[in-house]
């Protein structure tokens, strides 16, 4: 992501976060996520799980006795859940604005989606050359969470204020939509955590230290690699292979 193109509202926040923390990039590595992005990501993840676990107790009678004690009992879970949820939506909102530009959908992404089975089966070793900063799968998850946040916010406020304010039927509907949104997100998060840790080794450090190896970059995000380094990803990979053999 080339910086400085557009003056953004969070430009200052990004700058000041950069002076709060630091990102060390070693030789053979590329800067992937700046401090601002990383802080937002982990704030999102923290509040997502807090909201998820406080919500679980209320979601299923069979889970009630398991999850509510974690937060000091049912009443406390219930009181805190909406605040956790709002914090999640707030931080994800900032992250969404931060990532809006690289998350825009392109025709190459639709093509990627049609070939998704090749990725799942592991047949395709390298991402197609058009894959940029994020691949279509990541973008899909991003937009799913954006949609989920909107659904959460609307239905959550209705459930919070309750039938006294909004009437019985809106509450009964909101409750179902709120749950479906949570279930979709939960399913997606398993895949997300898997791929960003053990599923594609080398990814996790991008959200911890902020830097990734060049090999990771040309394998998983070739177009981004090309944009940053100016080198051809396939060529770079071949060079590395030859070097390794000799």
């Amino acid at each position, binding site marked *: 992501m080339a910086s400085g193109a557009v003056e953004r509202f969070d430009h200052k926040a990004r700058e000041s976060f950069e002076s709060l923390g630091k990102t060390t990039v070693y030789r053979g590595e590329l800067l992937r996520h700046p401090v601002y992005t990383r802080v937002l990501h982990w704030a999102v993840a923290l509040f997502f799980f807090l909201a998820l676990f406080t919500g679980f107790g209320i979601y299923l009678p069979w889970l009630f006795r398991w999850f509510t004690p974690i937060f000091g009992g049912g009443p406390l879970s219930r009181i805190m859940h909406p605040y956790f949820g709002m914090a999640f939506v707030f931080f994800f909102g900032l992250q969404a604005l931060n990532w809006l530009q690289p998350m825009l959908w392109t025709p190459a992404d639709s093509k990627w989606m049609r070939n998704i089975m090749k990725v799942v089966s*592991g047949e395709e070793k390298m991402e197609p050359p058009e894959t940029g900063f994020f691949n279509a799968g990541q973008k899909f998850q991003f937009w799913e969470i954006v949609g989920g946040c909107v659904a959460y916010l609307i239905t959550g406020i209705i459930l919070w204020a309750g039938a006294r304010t909004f009437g019985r*039927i809106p509450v*009964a509907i909101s409750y179902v939509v709120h749950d479906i949104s949570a279930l979709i997100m939960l399913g997606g998060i398993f895949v997300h955590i*898997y791929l960003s840790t053990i599923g594609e080794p080398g990814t996790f450090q991008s959200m911890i230290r902020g830097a990734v190896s060049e090999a990771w970059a040309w394998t998983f995000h070739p177009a981004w690699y090309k944009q940053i380094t100016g080198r051809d990803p396939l060529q770079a990979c071949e060079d590395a292979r030859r070097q390794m053999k000799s």
Partner: protein
Amino acid sequence: MPDRKALQADMISAHTGPSPGHGMQRDLEVCKLIDTTTCIGCKACEVACAEWNDLPFTPTTFDNTYQTMPQTSYHFWNLIKFNEHQNPDGTIQWLMRKDQCMHCADPGCLAACPADGAIVKYANGIVDFNQENCIGCEFCVSGCPFEIPRFNPMTKKVYKCTLCSDRVGEGLEPACIKACPTGCLKFGSKDDMKFIAGERAKQLRDNFGWQNAGVYDPQSVGGTHVIYVLHDATDPERYGGLPSNPTIPWSYTVWKWLFKPVLGTFALFGFLGVLAHYVTSGPRLAQPEPPGKEKING
């Protein structure tokens, strides 16, 4: 009392003919009968309720009727609703209906509640809220077709009429029944109350010209343990919004007990899915893979 019933012989081995004593003791499902045709709106039941349940009285709003307050509240569970209903022929009917929890056989509040033990329905039909288990989510408010559960913002719990479960458990009638001076409130077994209500409705039809007089015991919620005798059972709405067809949203029945566990299990499959993927396909590595890891099987 209940113990004695447990020792009642129901079946006896190798015994022909009816078991001695069988059916002698009737099933006690309790019921409160409210005859709106003999209610005089004296509000003795309101006072008795507040008194017995130790409910603090607070300033209220005057809305140009005799009604004590616009609707029941967390500290006022029993409210006479006053309504001036104009008949098609221009005559006026001044209607009074005692509004409180209906103690549904199929309680929407209980179906909606996510907290273990916050709402209990006893075998005698009383539906009771246990505030110590209530988490204050107010789902019961949306589950109830009669607008009964009321949220107390100070304690963050929900309250409503208990049908004086504490008194009934001791063999006493509810406080409101005891206070009623006209006998329009009666308490007993559901069967007896239904019988009396039916007889009274018949009397109203045959002798007083109320052709539509009838009993309100809505089957859409499985019947209730508070039943009304109405001058016109075809139009309960006129009695301060008594629903003619009370229903529980399907989301609280189908969704909660069927789809929730099923879909929750599906979400869990996300976890099993990635696990299976790791075990069968393994990770996707950055290319080129280090030489020590180069494949030997093509």
